[in-house]
């Protein structure tokens, strides 16, 4: 095990964390501000990826395809909010879970009807290979782009939430919805806009991750579980928490997968190590979540005081 491998795996962890952040940012906004558990968040991620694959094929440009998929998914998200989800805000969490789970099934079958079970979205050719970061450390160029986009989105959201008027309303809504309403904030419109922004982030995540992950029906459910872990660790409703939580989950998961089996090999017999290593590595992030919740029951950066 060389130091280059350790650098590379840390980079992988950061990169996986920022991938998760793209999805978790939207989820934490919706969950934190509207107090709405939206399981269909993953379906919007799937829609974003499928729309991007169609737009990239139609325009012939990866960038144009992604940029078109984002507003298209945002509009679909807002239509969904106005037509279905709005009526669920007053209901308890169980009804929300049931209704949005139904949405997952409906959207999955709708995508299957419209596109088929899967779609292709290739990496832009210029980014398809690796670049030499350090001597002896080639790193996939596309993953570097994901790191850049993730950081850029984090910066942009941070600026939006802390420096703009809309951001102030969002923060007000997140910390005390009734008070914000009493102060005359148009909560209905704010919620629709926030939901649209969440959907746009989903589309960005779906489109950016599509060249690395399978674009297929049901792709949203798998990654949604990780996104929930991220926002619970980070503190629901907090963008900063989502960023820190995502990077923590990414690093712990990657380092665990990469080095736990080696570490076990040092102390146990090979047979035990090869069985226990992967098993422990796959629960590492849930152990992390349990530890965080034990010391900080509201997550690392709770939005609500």
């Amino acid at each position, binding site marked *: 095990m060389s130091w280059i491998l350790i650098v590379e795996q840390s980079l992988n962890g950061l990169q*996986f964390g920022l991938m998760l952040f793209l999805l978790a940012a939207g989820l934490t906004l919706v969950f934190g501000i509207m107090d709405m558990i939206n399981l269909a968040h993953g379906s919007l991620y799937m829609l974003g990826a499928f729309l991007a694959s169609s737009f990239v094929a139609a325009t012939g440009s990866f960038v144009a395809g992604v940029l078109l998929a984002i507003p298209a998914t945002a509009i679909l998200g807002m239509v969904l909010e106005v037509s279905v989800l709005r009526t669920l805000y007053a209901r308890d969490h169980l009804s929300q879970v049931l209704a949005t789970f139904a949405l997952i099934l409906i959207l999955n079958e709708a995508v299957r009807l419209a596109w088929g079970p899967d779609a*292709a979205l290739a990496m832009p050719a210029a980014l398809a290979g690796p670049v030499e970061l350090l001597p002896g450390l*080639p790193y996939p160029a596309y993953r570097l782009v994901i790191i850049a986009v993730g950081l850029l989105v984090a910066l942009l959201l941070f600026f939006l939430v802390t420096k703009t008027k809309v951001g102030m309303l969002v923060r007000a809504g997140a910390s005390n919805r009734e008070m914000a309403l009493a102060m005359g904030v148009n909560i209905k419109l704010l919620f629709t806009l926030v939901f649209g922004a969440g959907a746009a982030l989903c589309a960005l995540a779906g489109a950016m991750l599509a060249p690395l*992950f399978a674009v297929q029906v*049901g792709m949203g459910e798998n990654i949604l579980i990780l996104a929930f872990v991220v926002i619970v660790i980070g503190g629901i409703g907090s963008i900063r928490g989502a960023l820190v939580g995502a990077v923590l989950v990414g690093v712990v998961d*990657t380092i665990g997968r990469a080095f736990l089996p080696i570490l076990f090999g040092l102390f146990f017999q090979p047979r035990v190590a090869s069985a226990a290593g*992967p098993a422990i590595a796959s629960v590492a992030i849930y152990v992390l979540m349990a530890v965080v919740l034990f010391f900080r029951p509201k997550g690392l950066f709770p939005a609500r005081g």
Partner: protein
Amino acid sequence: MKIRSAVIAAACALAFAPLSSTYAADKVKIGFISTLSGPSGAIGVDIRDAFQLAIKMNGGQLGGLPAEVLVGDDQFKPDVGRQLAEKYVKSDRVNFLTGIVFSNIMLAAVPIAFDNKTLYVSPNAAPSPLAGKQCNPYFFVASWPNDAYHEAAGQHASNRGFKSAYLIAPNYQAGKDSLAGFKRFYKGSVVAEVYTQLGQLDYAAEIAQVRAAKPDTLYIFLPGGMGINFIKQYVGAGMSSQVPLIVPGFGSDQDIIRPVGSAMLGLFDTAHWAMDLDNAANRKFVAAFEKEYKRLPTVFAAQGYDTAMLIGAAVRDTKGKIEDVEAVRRALRAAKFESVRGAFKFNRNQYPIQNYYLRVVAKDSQGRIVNKTIGTVFKDHGDAYVQDCAMK
């Protein structure tokens, strides 16, 4: 007392006479259970489509009898698969049961067929327990034993002279079985055997370890979306030119090529069938499948088609007297049908003995990305478990 029991015996014989009669039936009834929805649904859909295509090409008949196929979706759940089997076997009284994709679902459902002496012809799942100690007279495999593709891949890695191999599979039973199959025929050294999470998305960590380990070859068994993720990321990391990747045949078939695209070119895999196998039955099947469904067939489709043809041959050879289960069994064992894979016969455990081919992903004359056959890895290959089977 003696007389009374003789009368009862006679009465019973009369009562059950219709069941064992040798009159020809008026139709053949087939229960088809498969995974048709959800992320793994594409495989079941391919098997079903090809199965029904075979019947359609025979004018709605199998072996001279009109065929009635009852299709049910097991939703990837063993309990649902078992319920469907119960319904088809006990209340619909089907002549054959078939269709199940996944071993865990099939193992839950087949005992119902066995207990009721209903024949099960597997179009895909062929787990090792049913090949060895628990082999069953009512169980036939029209596909390939679960280990076979991996064994062929191991043999191919040996043939190519790869001295060291790195192995990756998901952390569950089939993953462990697959790597055991690879190692059974691989003569080089195994650098590492890595078990990843089922349903894992990101493989950057594993790919970095492979790069550091510098093996001669990498073998992965990552079915479905996991394989798509891995291959996309492996090619994106520029690794495919450094450490050649070998996959089992279903890991680089049309359902994987479609979403991954040209990154698949040059990948080697092993399978019992390929689109370009040169025999009359295969040419007819590939052309008809593409015309009917506007897509290219996968190994799963070929298996579905062969399953229907095998059942059809058994019905034909019993002259339609399919109520006589023993006669149908004998006819199935004889396997007198034109398989799209070419030569086919059953071992005594009713698992196939057949050839396995080396394929490479390449462009065909029309510019489509397909699997091309470039060699034979095993000739008349059976399985490693048959010696434990008591069946003659």
